[in-house]
């Protein structure tokens, strides 16, 4: 790839401070017009939280507007039994390939990294195609431990349809986002009044996928991109819809997202995967929230190809620390990382207790990296 010139790189269009300030002022005015606090909205995407934290956007958001990070980190919501399946398979001597973030996610008796340290073979790959390439070079079975939302599931589906070598199979922990929004909306203690939906997932599903949700729950949904101005503009639209009492879907990422989405990708996704209910770590049982291989691809399904015995992992008592982890409540938007007694102490990126500290898209990891949310607005304004 070619790196752009100085000028081109500096002129990143969607990071203009003046426009950012104008949007923030509009947001302040709109939130004020609603006339109560807090107005709580949720985004369900680690990349949104990354950008919000990276650019320090929380410090220009209205104090009365609470932007909660929901269950938008696929690594974080991979449930303990799913991690256990990977660990058990690796301990049984089957070679595994997975994304780097999955290595440290704790299961009932340790993580894949622990299994690897004890001799199991786990390869880190950056994409499913890299795993397929690796399988082609090997004379043994290779299981791709697949995680991620519909965006990454489409990539897995495409490789499966392309015809991987016979020694390749998939242990799917893929998740599907739209159903979990229903779960959050139905939580009795939820305060969420609207959702900011992830632009990249909507590129595939189309924004139309949220229409039934809006009709059922009478909550607005706005699809937004990932640059600072995308996010601010998305929030402005969302607060407008809340103020107007109009539950509707709006698309603030039209340069990528259409109503129908990517029909070819959807066709591939639903040809390879079927939705199945299952637990999301720390959240709840999510009907249709998991993506599993359809019967047509049973021969590529590691769960059917191997006898995965997770029961022997249960002999290990869960670590006492895990019981104090608040990841679930944090992902449901009910608690903040700083409410957790482990955050930044026993739980650190190098030695995570909860999954939210593992992935670079996890709430706790992002807070840890970007210093949380202290009040910084006025610091240094009166200089001696």
């Amino acid at each position: 790839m070619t790196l752009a010139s100085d000028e081109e790189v500096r002129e990143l269009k969607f990071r203009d401070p003046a426009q950012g300030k104008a949007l923030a002022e509009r947001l302040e005015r709109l939130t004020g017009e609603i006339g109560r606090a807090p107005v709580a909205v949720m985004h369900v995407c680690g990349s949104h939280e990354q950008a919000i934290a990276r650019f320090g956007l929380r410090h220009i958001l209205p104090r009365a507007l609470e932007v909660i990070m929901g269950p938008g980190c696929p690594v974080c919501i991979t449930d303990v039994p799913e991690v256990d399946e990977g660990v058990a398979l690796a301990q049984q001597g089957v070679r595994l390939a997975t994304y780097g973030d999955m290595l440290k996610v704790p299961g009932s008796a340790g993580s894949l990294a622990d299994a690897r340290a004890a001799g199991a073979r786990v390869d880190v790959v950056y994409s499913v195609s890299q795993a397929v390439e690796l399988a082609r070079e090997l004379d043994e079975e290779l299981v791709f431990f697949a995680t991620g939302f519909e965006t990454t599931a489409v990539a897995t589906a495409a490789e499966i349809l392309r015809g991987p070598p016979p020694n390749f199979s998939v242990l799917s922990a893929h998740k599907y986002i739209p159903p979990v929004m229903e779960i959050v909306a139905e939580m009795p203690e939820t305060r969420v009044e609207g959702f900011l939906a992830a632009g990249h997932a909507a590129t595939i599903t189309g924004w139309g996928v949220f229409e039934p949700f809006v009709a059922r729950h009478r909550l607005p949904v706005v699809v937004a991109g990932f640059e600072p101005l995308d996010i601010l503009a998305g929030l402005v639209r969302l607060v407008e819809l809340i103020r107007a009492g109009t539950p509707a879907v709006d698309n603030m990422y039209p340069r990528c997202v259409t109503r129908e989405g990517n029909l070819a990708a959807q066709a591939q996704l639903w040809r390879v995967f079927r939705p199945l209910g299952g637990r999301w770590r720390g959240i709840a049982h999510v009907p249709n929230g998991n993506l599993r291989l359809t019967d047509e691809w049973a021969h590529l399904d590691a769960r059917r190809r191997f006898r995965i015995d997770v029961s022997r992992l249960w002999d290990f008592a869960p670590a006492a620390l895990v019981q104090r982890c608040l990841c679930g409540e944090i992902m449901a938007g009910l608690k903040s990382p700083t409410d957790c007694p482990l955050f930044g102490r026993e739980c650190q990126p190098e030695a995570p207790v909860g999954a939210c500290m593992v992935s670079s898209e996890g709430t706790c990891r992002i807070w840890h990296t970007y210093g949380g949310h202290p009040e910084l607005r006025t610091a240094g304004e009166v200089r001696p």
Partner: protein
Amino acid sequence: MKAQLPIGERITLKHGAGGRAMRALIEQVFLDGAETPSGGIGLAAMDDGAALRVGDRWLVLTTDSHVIHPLFFPGGDIGRLSVSGTVNDLAMMGATEVLALTCSVIVEDGFPAAQLEAVQASIRATSREAAAPIVTGDTKVMGRGELDGLVLNTAGVAFTDRVVPDSGLRPGDRILVTGTLADHGFAVLAARHKLDLQGELRSDVAPINSLVREALAAGGADVVAMKDPTRGGLASALHEMAEKSGVGVVLEERRIPLTGPVRAAAELLGIDPLHVANEGKAVLGVRPDAVNRVLEALRAHPLGREAAVVGTCITEHRGRIILDTGLGRRLLTEPEGEPLPRIC
């Protein structure tokens, strides 16, 4: 003060990464029982070097060991790195006229002689560039697998009339950097991982004692703190300076000079350039009245053309660095482990 990090049972790479873990290691293992020279600066100050009173002047002393992969990278090599590292540590204490350097070389059995000669040529050239003569040295060869290729250690001594500590900041002081940041770390990262990034990612490794001399000549006693942002980058250097000085710092991200290729590589790799190492740059704390003089002096020097004022010290948030992104604000944290593979 922040709570001390426990070291744990084993030393890991993060203990060498230049952040809090490394400071905890030094404090808990090496400072135990360390003696402070009377009236001077010793280990306990954890500055860039030591300063001993000799007559009415200060003798500044420092030492540095170097391992790096690859040994040769765009913009430099381990030889240039080892001379620059020690010369720059002396300069950061205010000692820009180097009296002498030492150089020890530990080589692995089987190391190519031609590479060693190339490293030695680079050491000699850099020592001339810095006017820092190498006056003694040592050579050892170790068995295959007992070390990885080549390890260099350099030590240096220099006299100065005034020692510039890294703890002299007070509210209102401005923070300057002497040029673009993160060039070294990204160049080494790209070379090490053979990343297919086109564009000029070149290490900035250089002895900057002559540049610092100009800044000190222009600013005099108004240059109150200096540090070279090596491992851990600007983030670690500023944290250390702010913590020791008891001030907070507001850093303006958009004023921080970065080359286009570094900007793009940082974006692409998701690595914060403020966490990435430099080997030819300095961070200066300067009293407000002297800022323009010092900035002009820096910019007049070939190694300081991109120098910039990037921040201001404040009373609140002691020991914290607040990053103003132009769009909002957040805290700049220190890298906890190695954000990159070993690079210096």
